[in-house]
């Protein structure tokens, strides 16, 4: 009889040991999930409370809250703070606030949307002006470079043949042409500036009316 009891106890003991080992393995695997991320308990718990963690993390955290006293306590604290923050009401200004605002806006008018008074044509005009200016200077600069002439290979011959340096750029880019080009750009710039100022004045007049 004693032997039977002893045997039964031993069997129960080994089952408990197995369960404990299994529990330890589970806990260790759960811990590893978080050790990889090096995140604090608080951070993980906030993610859980805010509903920002993955399903895997969620179930791991739930197990930890159930089994670990430290996690349980922290979870309770953070949940309480979360409830406090969620239930906190917004502050109210004085009773006259809405009336004050309405009285104040009575002196103003809704301004036209920025997209209405920003004319795409002006933007395109400015863009074209600068592009023309850059292109002009680039062409002028290229014309000043004296590419090396000569060479025996076919590639070198080709370069020599079509070398912009061999063209007589001087015919087209002498002082007179450059001055005309700059003058046109200046006139274009002034026209655009005038367009912007006129538009601004027109808008101001419309708002004042």
């Amino acid at each position, binding site marked *: 009889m004693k032997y039977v009891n002893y045997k039964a106890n031993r069997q129960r003991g080994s089952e408990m040991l197995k369960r404990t080992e299994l529990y330890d393995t589970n806990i260790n695997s759960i811990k590893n999930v978080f050790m990889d991320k090096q995140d604090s308990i608080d951070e993980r718990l906030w993610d859980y409370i805010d509903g920002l963690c993955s399903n895997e993390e969620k179930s791991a955290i739930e197990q930890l809250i159930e089994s670990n006293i430290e996690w349980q306590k922290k979870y309770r604290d953070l949940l309480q*703070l979360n409830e*406090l923050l969620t*239930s*906190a009401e917004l502050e109210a*200004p004085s009773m006259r606030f809405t009336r004050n605002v309405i009285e*104040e806006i009575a002196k*103003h008018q*809704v301004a036209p949307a920025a997209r209405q008074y920003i004319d795409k044509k002006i933007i395109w005009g400015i863009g074209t002006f600068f592009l023309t200016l850059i292109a002009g200077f680039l062409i002028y600069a290229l014309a000043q470079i004296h590419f090396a002439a000569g060479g025996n290979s076919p590639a070198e011959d080709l370069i020599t043949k079509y070398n912009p340096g061999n063209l007589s750029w001087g015919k087209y880019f002498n002082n007179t042409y450059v001055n005309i080009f700059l003058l046109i750009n200046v006139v274009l710039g002034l026209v655009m500036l005038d367009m912007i100022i006129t538009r601004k004045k027109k808008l101001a007049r419309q708002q004042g009316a």
Partner: protein
Amino acid sequence: MHVGLTDREIISRVLKGEQQIFAGLVSRYQNYVFTLVHRFTSNREDAEEISQDVFVKAYRSLADFRGESKFSTWLYTIVRTNCITFLRKKKLDISSIDSEKAASQLENRESSFSANLVEQKSRTKMVNEAIKMLSPNDGQIITLFYSAEQSLQEMGRILGMEPNTVKVKLHRARQRLKEKMEKNFADEIRELQGE
């Protein structure tokens, strides 16, 4: 008059010339704006003045609201700009809120709140007072997340940050709030826990 109308419906009617209906938006968002502004300024009068200015600016540039985001999100951008301008005028740089000077200002605020601890009975009041002890930026993040119910993505959009950065900042703000509450409202917290 404006009950039951959505924000967009109110906006389109205001843009058509019904100025008075703007009151609907003011009464809907006045607490939200006032709370956010009050997180920046410790003074109620200043907060009210800035909030009023926010609504006037919102009214004036209402045509620029494209409806791509929530009205509250768009409104917050005006709140932030106004508050920063106000603080600049007051010569208090919010970016240096962790500096020694600003820290001492916050400490002063803390002590004045501690003196009124006995009067602070309600949960809401306690939380609001604790939030006021934080830096304006921390207070804003907590208010936007909890009271304005903005998502991390929306907060990221209005604060010009990645949602993950907002998450980290929110976590830190809550951590600091927890510390402030434990330091200044220990009795109330124990009461809430039923100890």
